[in-house]
């Protein structure tokens, strides 16, 4: 499959490093001049822009945090004058107060370019009909993929999220060849397509799903339910939106567009950079973005970078699926639990055929954390006799205990009884008040 920008996507490491260094020096200088928060932190470290000569100096620079976006809400972190800001987006605010991001015309182009590279790398281009079922509006999902899809010359169906019946009808009638939405919504659409028995009426080839973590098992389920190849795309509003990185045809990690976003992996406790290939917290520096640049932004995503050459020929490092966000992590009875671990266990069961709809409920009763997981009953899981169901239930409980290190109560509930989301899935209900 082709490249969107072959020269940049296949640059040698030396060329890339030189390019990154030049852009970093430029970015640090303009951030120092225009962003008060950054300047104050540099001054505290007694650092001047002149002390930064290239990416070897990156670890000297101060970190930035999600909290900064709240403290300097709404425009305090912008490095370009408002007259140059042509678009505002805001994060969906799943974790606390809303944050905003501003884009210059050039930023929108960088963003669309990132999404275009991902779409091209999974085989899409002119002649494809792309249904975008991410929410449009302040959320970066809809317009982010929209920009990329238009850029590659595909036919765009700006569907936005919601109204599942109409989504499926549109897909069928307009012969959409690709679908972009959140993986949980893709899962839901897949279930509905199966229930209605209309899979053979679809023209879909591929799906590009992101904006929330998902597992390999979920990928298999979506691929089977919709008859497509499913690819992961990554991004965050603070950095730019979807298209910071994405999978190529080999589904072996997401290429980070390092000519725009420098990734680092740090130890979240010591804050020291870790060698490439280690697992730790992902940190990004946007070296070309003008509107709201981020220097060493701590994403809270835990993952690993793979520097080995990819079969597709792209030289940009691949980030493995984040297996959790440090702020998604639950601490239950003193043990760190990531919802993604629970997902892996549930979906891995019974050949991954359990309907992967589940909800984690954490509460505190008599000063002790309670940990319950509701799992929707599925066809494959159900038997006419109590014994077999209980055996399976016990096996899930045992597996969870061995993976998580603590016990959870598993409850089998009616199918379709856990609220389906058309945006992000609400997987965790934490009722503890501490």
């Amino acid at each position, binding site marked *: 499959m082709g490249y969107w920008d072959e020269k940049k996507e296949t640059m040698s490491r030396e060329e890339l490093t030189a390019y990154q260094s030049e852009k970093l020096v430029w970015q640090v200088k303009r951030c120092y001049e225009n962003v008060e928060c950054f300047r104050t932190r540099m001054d505290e470290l007694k650092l001047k822009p002149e002390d930064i000569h290239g990416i070897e100096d990156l670890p000297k620079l101060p970190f930035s945090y999600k909290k900064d976006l709240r403290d300097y809400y709404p425009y305090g972190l912008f490095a370009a004058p408002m007259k140059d800001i042509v678009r505002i987006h805001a994060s969906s605010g799943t974790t606390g107060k809303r944050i905003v991001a501003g884009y210059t015309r050039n930023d929108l182009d960088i963003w669309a370019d990132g999404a275009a590279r991902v779409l091209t790398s999974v085989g899409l281009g002119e002649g494809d009909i792309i249904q975008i079922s991410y929410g449009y509006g302040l959320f970066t999902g809809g317009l982010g993929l929209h920009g990329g899809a238009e850029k590659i010359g595909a036919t765009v169906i700006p569907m936005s999220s919601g109204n599942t019946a109409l989504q499926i009808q549109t897909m069928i009638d307009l012969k959409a060849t690709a679908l972009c939405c959140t993986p949980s919504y893709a899962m839901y659409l897949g279930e509905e397509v199966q*229930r209605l028995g209309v899979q053979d009426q679809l023209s879909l080839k591929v799906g590009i799903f992101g904006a929330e973590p998902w597992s390999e098992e979920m990928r298999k389920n979506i691929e089977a339910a919709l008859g497509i190849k499913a690819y992961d795309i990554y991004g965050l509003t603070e950095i730019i939106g979807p298209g910071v990185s994405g999978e190529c045809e080999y589904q072996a990690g997401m290429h980070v567009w390092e000519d725009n976003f420098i990734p680092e992996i740090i130890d979240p406790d010591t804050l020291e950079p870790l060698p490439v290939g280690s697992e730790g917290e992902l940190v990004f520096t946007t070296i070309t973005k003008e509107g709201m640049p981020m220097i060493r932004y701590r994403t809270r995503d835990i993952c690993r970078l793979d520097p080995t050459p990819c079969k597709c020929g792209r030289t940009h490092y691949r980030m493995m699926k984040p297996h959790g966000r440090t702020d998604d992590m639950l601490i239950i009875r003193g043990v760190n639990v990531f919802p993604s671990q629970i997902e892996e266990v549930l979906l891995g069961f019974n050949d991954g055929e359990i309907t992967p709809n589940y909800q984690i409920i954490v509460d505190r009763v008599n000063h002790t954390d309670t940990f319950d997981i509701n799992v929707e009953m599925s066809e494959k899981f159900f038997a*006419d*006799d109590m014994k077999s169901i*209980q055996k399976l239930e016990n096996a899930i409980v045992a597996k969870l205990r061995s993976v998580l290190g603590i016990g959870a109560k598993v409850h*089998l509930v009616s*199918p379709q009884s856990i609220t389906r989301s058309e945006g992000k899935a609400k997987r965790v209900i934490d009722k503890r008040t501490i």
Partner: protein
Amino acid sequence: MFATQLSVFVENKTGRLSEILNTFSEHHIDIRALSIAENSEFGILRLIVSETERAYDILKREGFIVKKTEVLSLQMEDKPGALAQLVDKLSDAGVGIEYLYAFVSREDGGANVVLRLDDTEAAQNLFK
């Protein structure tokens, strides 16, 4: 004789059973016999109905989890000792019973028993 029983998953929560029964009511499905096996979390509703295939399709379409199970449905005399005799016959032949439930038939007022056995074939021959 063999009969096809429908087994439906029922979460142990107020209103869940009525959802299923109302579905039958809406579609005019007559329930001939039923029993519920339950633990504290969920139950398995077992039913013999008037139109098994149609009822199965409707339940599936409405999103219930339902399975078809082959069971043995036998008629016996409605008098003391009849069930004991039947069960003895099975145990003498070494056939195990997983569960059973009884009902009275509307047509002839006879007693009926639905049996789920570990060896339905062998039992079938016993009651020819």
